[in-house]
């Protein structure tokens, strides 16, 4: 049989996903974070239990709607974070998840980016519920293109999907195809993300 689409690690987590949330124990968790949406093809929900004294994650469960790499990346993330402090977990990036998975095809990278976002949303949810609002660092996605409602997060996803030029970005997101006022800002946001993720 020809080589599988993904790494052995991805295959393992796809075939035997760890820490899936069962329907009956949703209420036992201290922080819940949701990211993505079904319309786009990927949606992830991360649930954490927190030791309130040490501020460490004692358990992490998840649900994911999405492809094999989305399932595997949430599964592996749930294993990575158990035992971490909230600060450590908050610092996990898409790159960290990718590394644990032994890589993903370029066009799949946006899937695994969602897991770390859902996790940060869950941590922020915990902070919010426990009077630690000052620790919340997530700022909502900022709209860059008003006409087409394209956010900085959308631009980041596009960059992670391989977009390198403004016309490619427009093909993918339709950004700046309305009034066109956002062009300059959109290009600089795009360049920032290219710099951030790929150092180019």
């Amino acid at each position: 049989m020809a080589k599988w689409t993904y790494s052995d690690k991805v295959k393992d987590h796809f075939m035997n996903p760890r820490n899936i949330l069962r329907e009956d124990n949703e209420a036992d968790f201290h922080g819940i974070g949701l990211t993505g949406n079904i319309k786009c093809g990927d949606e992830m929900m991360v649930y954490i239990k927190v030791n309130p004294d040490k501020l460490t994650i004692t358990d992490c469960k998840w649900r994911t709607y999405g492809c094999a790499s989305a399932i595997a990346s949430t599964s592996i993330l749930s294993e990575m974070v158990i035992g971490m402090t909230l600060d450590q977990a908050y610092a996990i990036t898409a790159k960290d998840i990718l590394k644990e998975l032994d890589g993903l095809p370029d066009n799949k990278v946006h899937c695994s980016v969602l897991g770390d976002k859902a996790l940060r949303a869950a941590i922020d949810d915990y902070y919010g519920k426990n009077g630690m609002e000052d620790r919340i660092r997530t700022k909502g996605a900022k709209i860059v293109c008003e006409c087409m409602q394209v956010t900085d997060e959308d631009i980041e996803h596009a960059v992670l999907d391989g977009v390198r030029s403004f016309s490619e970005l427009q093909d993918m997101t339709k950004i700046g195809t309305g009034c066109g006022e956002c062009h300059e800002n959109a290009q600089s946001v795009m360049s920032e993300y290219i710099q951030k993720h790929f150092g180019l």
Partner: protein
Amino acid sequence: MEHRTVYFDNNATTPLHPGVKEALIEGLEIFGNPSSMHGFGREAREKIEEAREKVASFIGAEADEILFVGSGSEANNTVLSLLHCDSTRCFCALSGRSGLVTTVIEHPCVLNTARDLGRKNHAVTYLSVDKYGRIDLEELRRAVTDKVGMVSIMMANNEIGTIQDIKAAARIAHEGGALFHTDAVQAVGKIPVDVRDLDVDFLTISAHKLYGPKGIGALYVKKGSPYCPLILGGHQENGRRAGTENSLGIIGLGKAVELRALEMEEEEKRLLELKNILKDGIAKAIPDTLFMGHPEHCLPGTLSVSFVGAEGEAILLYLDLAGIAVSTGSACASGSLDPSHVIMATGVPVENAHGSVRISLGRENTLDDVQYMLHHLPPIIDRIRTMSTAYRRR
């Protein structure tokens, strides 16, 4: 249940018919250039002309109306390229009628060629489809203005299997003074196709969809139709398609249609029965499913289904691990971020498009294959739904 491999992706491509394989092995001996006048060349020429006869008779055409091309995509590109012929190298310019009417559910080789025409300032109209994937003939009638040179409508859709009323569509095109092309790649070899009865001007065939080899297709060009070659060069195919003929591929295509003529009718009846068993089995075992495509006007072996809360690539890969090959309209599996344009065009919610699976049966499939699928699919869907954010049991 014992592990087996089940190929349910016959709309993507088909395995070689054993008879075709045999013909190809024999054909390997024939190396002469069919344009050569000596014995080696004449032998190759003879085989090619035999194959041409077979293809022609399979679709009710004359032999000189068939030309061999490298693929269905090439055939479709060739036909649409007539619209920008400026008559400087041939005499086919469509008297100023440079517009194209096509549909939103065409294969990418038509859609992307149409978009290219659009960029070159040709007026292109894309007909919408109903929830079953059928066009509205009245919309077509309105679209065929005196600026339209060509109407191109696929006969049967590769993803959902829906079959269009090509005879009526061709009549409407002709009444409006336009030429009519149909991409019949998914239809020829699965349902009866007669070019005289349909009265089309151009029709596209691909060998690898009917148990023939890859890299070879045929284009029917009705006698007297305007025609302009896409590939310039030698005089092959009567100057209509340059490049030394792919004799081996042509032999394979000829054998494939010969065998289809013998086997198609019985086999497609059998595939329809198998598909219905599969469909009923899925409907019974798996809640919250949506079947797509036309309930009647549909390819016998094509079943398109979507499972709420389960994403298509995950379904495909779990089935693959069980030895079953299907395809999906999910964005994840397509390499782009967009789910199937065909399923979206039928007005199905986007999450259903992401969760769509195409099961396409072929001549090698058996009842055991169907039962194997019905054994594996329900637990796979259940498993995916258990970890899905988008599904709650009732």
